[in-house]
C-alpha cells in the first residue's frame, strides 16, 4: 500500500516537472542565465510550489502522525555549517554546467535519450564518493 501511494506521488511529481519545464535542460539553463536572455518561468514554478507546500505542510503537520507511518520524519539538523555550504556550492556548479538536478534528470529518463542515463550513473558515483569522504571527516 505504501509503495502504491508513493508511486502515485512520484507520478504527480513527474507530471509537475514536465509541465513546468524543469525537464527541459535548455529552459533551466535559460532560467539560470540571468545575465543573458533570462527565462523567468521557473521562478514562477518554484514560487507556486513553495507557497503550496507552505500552506499544505501547515495543515498536514498539525496531525499527530502521517496516514501510513508512526511518525513524521523531519530533518533535525538546523546547523548552517561548512558541509552544507560546500555541498550546495558544488551542487550549484554541477547544475549550472548541465542544467539537470536530481528530480528532473530522473524524470528525463522517460525520453529514452543517452544524456540523462549517463548523468544519473555519474550522479550516483558522485553521491557514493561524498558518502565515502564523509565517513573520514
Amino acid at each position, binding site marked *: 500500500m505504501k509503495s502504491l501511494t508513493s508511486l502515485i506521488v512520484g507520478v504527480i511529481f513527474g507530471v509537475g516537472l514536465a509541465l513546468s519545464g524543469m525537464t527541459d535542460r535548455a529552459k533551466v539553463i535559460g532560467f539560470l542565465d540571468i545575465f543573458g536572455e533570462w527565462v523567468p518561468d521557473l521562478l514562477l514554478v518554484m514560487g507556486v510550489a513553495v507557497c503550496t*507546500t507552505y500552506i499544505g505542510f501547515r495543515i498536514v503537520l498539525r496531525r499527530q502522525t502521517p496516514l501510513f507511518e508512526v511518525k513524521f520524519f523531519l*530533518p533535525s539538523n538546523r546547523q548552517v555549517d561548512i558541509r552544507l555550504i560546500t555541498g550546495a556550492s558544488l551542487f550549484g556548479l554541477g547544475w549550472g554546467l548541465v542544467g539537470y538536478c536530481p528530480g528532473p534528470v530522473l524524470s528525463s529518463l522517460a525520453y529514452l535519450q543517452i544524456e540523462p542515463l*549517463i548523468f544519473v550513473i555519474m550522479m550516483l558515483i558522485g553521491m557514493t564518493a561524498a*558518502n565515502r569522504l564523509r565517513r573520514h571527516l
Partner: protein
Amino acid sequence: MSNIIFPIIGGAFIGVAVISLMLILGHIMGISGLLWAAVSNKSESNSLDDKLWRWTLIIGLPLGTLLAHSLTSIAVPEQGPVNIVMLLTGAFLVGFGTKLGNGCTSGHGVCGIGRLSIRSLVATVIFILVAMITVYGAGRI
C-alpha cells in the same frame, strides 16, 4: 498565455506531490535523499518495505513525465548536444554536492523553504547563485 499557465500548474503539481508524501508517509520529498536511501545499504532505510516505496516513487517520475507529454501539447525537450566532459563533471558534482549538503532543489528548495528552514534557505540561495555564475562563466568559454 501557456507560458504562464504551464509553470503555474506544474508548480502546483509539485507542491501537491510534496504535501501528499508528507501526509501519507511523513517524509520530505527530497529526490537526492530518496534516491540515495533507495540505492545505498547504509542508511536509515534498510527494510525492504522502506526501499520499495522509494523505488516506486522514483519509477513514478518518468511515468508522470510521459503522461504529461502525452496529455498536453508540450513537446519532448531536446537533451543534447552536450559536451561529454561537462556532462560527466556536472553529474558528479550534482551527486557529490547533494550528498554532502543533504539536499537538492526539491528537498531544500521546495520542502525546506516551505518549512521555513533557514538551513534550506541558505543552501537554496547558494546553489542558485553558484549555478547562475556557472552559466554566466560557461557562456564565456
